[in-house]
């Protein structure tokens, strides 16, 4: 994650569910109790950058019971039924509805806690969806030939649905594939004029 990268900054702004492990005075307003102490056990959604900080920082104290302020869970975008749906039908899940920064978010979460199954599933998902993206990009870039393999690329319909559901990483992939095809076509045209 680089310092100035917009994607990274936006990802860190996503909220994830946190559970406070200690009583914290004066933060009651986070739980709709303004002026009160925030009780241990309260669940609040905090932006990732803050949740990370609070989860790492221990609340001080000299005994061996130093707890961190907060324990966090995976964001709703990465909950189990989404992951299972991706395992079953990766092309049918509109990732963007879960989060525009789906993969970026997942990567950051996996940095913070071990999630081997998630890692494998997402990698497979990413590759499968990428193949589909390439097909669409080629069609839309005008590179379609007579032998294009049949897939569910409807005119509009299923195709548009799929493209609408791409997250940021996938959109960038699409743009790269599309630009490549387009540049190829442009070069072919230009070759006639010398």
């Amino acid at each position: 994650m680089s310092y100035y990268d917009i994607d990274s900054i936006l990802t860190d702004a996503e909220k994830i569910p946190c559970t406070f492990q200690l009583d914290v005075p004066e933060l009651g307003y986070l739980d709709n109790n303004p002026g009160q102490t925030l009780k241990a056990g309260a669940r609040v959604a905090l932006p990732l950058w803050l949740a990370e900080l609070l989860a790492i920082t221990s609340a001080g104290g000299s005994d061996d019971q130093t707890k961190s302020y907060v324990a966090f869970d995976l964001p709703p975008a990465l909950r189990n039924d989404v992951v299972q749906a991706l395992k079953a039908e990766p092309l049918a899940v509109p990732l963007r509805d879960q989060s525009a920064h789906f993969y970026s978010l997942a990567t950051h979460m996996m940095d913070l806690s071990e999630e081997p199954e998630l890692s494998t599933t997402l990698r497979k998902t990413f590759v499968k969806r990428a193949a589909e993206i390439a097909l669409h990009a080629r069609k839309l870039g005008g590179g379609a030939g007579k032998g294009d393999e049949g897939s569910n690329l409807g005119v509009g319909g299923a195709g548009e649905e799929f493209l609408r559901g791409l997250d940021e990483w996938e959109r960038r992939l699409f743009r790269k594939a599309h630009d490549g095809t387009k540049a190829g076509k442009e070069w072919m045209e230009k070759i006639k004029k010398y």
Partner: protein
Amino acid sequence: MDIDDILREVDPTLHEVPQEKRDLQDLTRAWVAERSAPELLNWPSGELFERINDNIKRQIERVEEMTGDMDPKTNFALIVIQTELERFKYLVRSYLRARLAKIDRHALHYLSTDELRARLSDMELAYATRHQALLHNHYLSSFLSSFPPALQNLNDTAGNIAMVDLPDLESAVFIRLLADSMVSGRGVDTDNTFEFQESDIVILRWSDAKPLIESGRAELV
């Protein structure tokens, strides 16, 4: 490491590759490499650039002389010379611009250690230093000086993220093998080692490709 010297010892009648052709190949390879690698590569050794620049200058002078001479016979030769000259100039310019782009993007990084600074030519070093200084002054006068002093640094590393941007050295690249070689590539689940043949094209991480490129066993494509 000059292969011509070794081969010359072994077989003196060997049909040698002339210096100009080698220079063009080296320049071309340097250009492709610089356009493809995620980080700034070393400035070419062996005076390659100085030689090419001198040759270009001399050729330009020759063109000027020939242009004065209106003999139709030399006219076509002039066109050929000028065409080739433009091609050389394009290569050189594109190469330098590719390097400048990388220097611009990660200036603080390339200026940060002696080893990295050694990759830049003298002119590039002067440019990078001056450019960075200008930029810094601009930031200071625009907004930086109104930050609390502790937050004015452009290169601190508090909070787990370095402010100085690094190029991603693990990016994937395409290489072509120039000789049969064992290639090791690191991956997520396994690391592979495989014997590839000359002219094979392989995708692997830049950090794995770098030793092959530097030793001349492969080139970027």
